[in-house]
């Protein structure tokens, strides 16, 4: 064999595996059942549902635990789950839930009202993770297990949004938690990597930093949404930090579903055979928050000038069309949202506002701070840089790690003039979103604008306890108009939520309140054939 023949033979040999690419079935399996492999970029360091709830953590919690109610669909609506029904007293203080009769924990224990009481009490007492949602309105001693299937909550003051938070309050098995508690830690250490739930899956192997393998509970009390022969044997969450390897693993069929891919990767994948990209309206608004207390952006005229100079259409182009401009301060999933006439690019108007500032001819330099490594945010900074040039404003684009960005935003003295932030709503509660513009939000990452306005503070406080639905919605409408008037933020867009998956994956259901890359894994299965 001469050198030429050797090279040809080697080339032919290498092309064999290439031709056999793209398996037509799930990569992982157990017996004749498939295992769904999901890949995302964020680990799950703490599984305890009362300590933590970021997107990757909540996705796993939803596999292992159940809540009284659950969000479903887009726009999200609350449906009964562990609770089959509920009612509220006329004064809005007492909420009574009736539990289903067949719920049980995965170790066989009955899930009763006492377990619900224990779980809410634990969540409040730990004062971590989810506790902020209810701690202002509910004391642990005001939760009562009336009988085995009835649980009653008595609030300190009326709170119409109470129900909207309950899908994030998962129920743990008191016996397992108590048995595994170390000292007075309420089982925190044990629940970091173990589960005491009633969900459709149980833990098979757990390394929150890299691989989490769950096995299906065949007799899950709520049943499975797919025909029994199609039910997967389990799900695996594989943490892959970088987007490129995640894309490669999906192409190879090592993973069935990938989240957190870049717009470019998704565009490429959408054109490939055996891969589909699910494109859904997103709920997390992207905003450029301006420092309303210190520096040039403390002047409302400069903030307005920036808002009218900005090129909003470029945002859509950056997302390759898969984004929607915001038409109000509230995201579309939030109750009480109204559509408003938002600032759009109008250079003449921008110059009019600029003329009212102490520096009508510009000559300013403003810092635009974004999360280092986030290419979309950097590109938006470039759009800002171009847009503000006609006003004589230079933009200094700075990328810093998220913790540093949040740390700097903690005080008006250290906050940048403009900071790029995504704020993901976790519920449909308008109180949560409206509170982002109250003085109490200053210093939190969603309050990097440090807005202080007495009218907004008053209306937020009134709306939170208003039982008359019409009055309540009117207050939220006024808040939204006031926020747009004060322009603490350049309201940008909500990027679509997109996942790429192998075409054999079935059962995907979009839920508008899914956080970042979160997906409901319970309904997924692999089509046979």
């Amino acid at each position: 064999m001469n050198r030429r023949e050797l090279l040809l033979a080697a080339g032919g040999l290498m092309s064999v595996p290439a031709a056999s690419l793209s398996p037509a079935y799930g990569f992982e399996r157990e017996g004749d059942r498939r295992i769904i492999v999901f890949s995302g970029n964020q680990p799950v360091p703490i599984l305890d549902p009362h300590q933590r709830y970021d997107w990757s953590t909540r996705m796993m919690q939803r596999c292992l635990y159940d809540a009284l109610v659950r969000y479903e669909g887009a726009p999200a609506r609350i449906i009964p789950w562990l609770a089959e029904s509920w009612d509220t007293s006329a004064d809005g203080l007492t909420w009574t839930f009736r539990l289903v009769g067949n719920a049980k924990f995965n170790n066989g224990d009955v899930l009763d009202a006492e377990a619900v009481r224990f779980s809410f009490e634990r969540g409040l007492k730990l004062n971590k993770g989810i506790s902020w949602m209810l701690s202002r309105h509910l004391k642990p001693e005001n939760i009562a297990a009336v009988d085995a299937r009835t649980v009653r909550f008595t609030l300190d003051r009326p709170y119409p949004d109470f129900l909207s938070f309950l899908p994030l309050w998962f129920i743990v098995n008191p016996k397992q938690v108590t048995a595994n508690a170390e000292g007075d830690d309420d089982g925190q250490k044990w629940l970091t990597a173990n589960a005491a739930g009633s969900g459709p899956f149980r833990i098979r192997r757990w390394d929150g930093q890299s691989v989490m393998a769950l096995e299906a509970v065949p007799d899950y009390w709520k049943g499975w949404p797919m025909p029994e022969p199609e039910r997967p044997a389990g799900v695996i969450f594989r943490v892959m930090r970088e987007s490129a390897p995640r894309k490669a693993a999906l192409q190879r069929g090592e993973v069935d579903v990938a989240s957190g891919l870049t717009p470019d990767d998704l565009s490429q994948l959408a054109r490939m055979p055996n891969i589909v990209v699910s494109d859904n309206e997103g709920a997390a608004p992207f905003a450029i928050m301006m420092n309303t207390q210190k520096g040039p952006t403390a002047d409302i005229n400069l903030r307005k000038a920036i808002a009218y100079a900005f090129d909003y259409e470029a945002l859509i182009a950056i997302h390759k069309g898969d984004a929607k401009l915001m038409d109000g301060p509230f995201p579309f999933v939030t109750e009480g949202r109204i559509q408003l006439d938002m600032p759009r690019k109008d250079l003449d108007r921008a110059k009019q506002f600029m003329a009212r500032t102490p520096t009508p001819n510009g000559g300013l330099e403003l810092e635009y701070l974004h999360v280092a490594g986030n290419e979309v945010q950097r590109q938006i900074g470039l759009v800002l840089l171009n847009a503000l040039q006609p006003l004589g404003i230079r933009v200094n684009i700075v990328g810093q790690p998220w913790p540093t960005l949040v740390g700097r935003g903690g005080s008006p003295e250290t906050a940048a003039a403009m900071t790029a932030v995504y704020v993901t709503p976790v519920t449909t509660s308008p109180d949560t979103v409206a509170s982002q513009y109250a003085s109490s939000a200053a210093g939190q990452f969603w309050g990097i604008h440090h807005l202080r306005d007495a009218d907004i503070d008053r209306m937020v406080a009134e709306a939170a306890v208003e039982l008359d639905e019409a009055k309540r919605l009117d207050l939220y409408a006024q808040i939204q108009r006031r926020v747009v008037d004060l322009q603490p933020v350049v309201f940008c867009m909500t990027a679509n939520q997109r996942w790429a998956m192998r075409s054999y994956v079935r059962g995907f259901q979009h839920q508008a309140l899914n956080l970042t890359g979160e997906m409901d894994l319970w309904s997924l299965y692999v089509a046979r054939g």
Partner: protein
Amino acid sequence: MLRYLAGRLAYVALMLLGLVVITFVISNVTPADPAALAAGPDATPDMVATLRREYGLDRPLPEQFLRYVTDLAQGRFGRSIQSGNTVGEDLLRYVPATLQLVILAMGFACAVGIPLGILAAVFRHSWVDHGIRILAVSGIALPAFWIALLLQLVLAVWWGWLPTGGILSIAADPPPTITGMVLFDALLAADWGVFADAASHAVMPAFVLSLPCLASVLRVNRAEMIEVLGSDHVTAARAHGVKPGRVIGLLALKNAMLPTLAMIGLRFGWMLGGTVLVETVFDWPGIGLYAVNAAIASDFKPVMGVTLVIGLMFMLTNLLVDLAYGWLDPRTRSA
């Protein structure tokens, strides 16, 4: 010799103390608030304060430092504020994976780099030498992440020969823990299926991690071999009719190995640092990936723990190299 060893160990201890001070200061001058980040985006000030108390972050900095040093002296690295786990336990879990990767990468770099260095020296200025030098320059010049992504694309996606990442197939059951390194544990357990699976996962990350070391070893070994092959005693040996293989293998290589050994020692430390990038791209569950995840969350105790472990290994490796130097070259023993 013992006096020398004691002096060197005291030096290592001093260096470690310096490392502790530097990492502690850096961790505390960044504007990020680990408690606020761990408490979650919606946490109230009261919730953040709870976490600060729980992790002692509400104490004055000198007190925190003193407590940290006291804990270190007792072998405790503190607790991760993100997971609540003790860093020592986490390190025990993740260090073996990194060691496995480094051992494989170092073994490959030496097994390939040293013979190639000899070949390049023996066939100096021939096409063999030029080809090997291109390889050496590429190994140093090409960014590791780029090579990693390219290999993933070609070997995993296009040809389907190797998995894209991870340490073991997800469905595979890990072998019984002996060393903690799955490849060697599978070997010890004679579990050939798992061994093959673990080996296929290790090929790409170990290769990428080995490249800079391989290139350095190759270059140093080539240069030293050229120098030694031109020395008088080698010429004399050749004149006395000693066979070429014996001249290269025994006379030249032994003398050329001293600087190569020093390079290997230095590269071991670099390699441990290099795992941060390689483990991230290949999702290799070692201390590099652990440190990245912790750093992103401003979880400083794990970052400090990993820094100390890498620093300690680096210093000990250099100490071993120095001792080996003395063994290989008696002239350096008294120095």
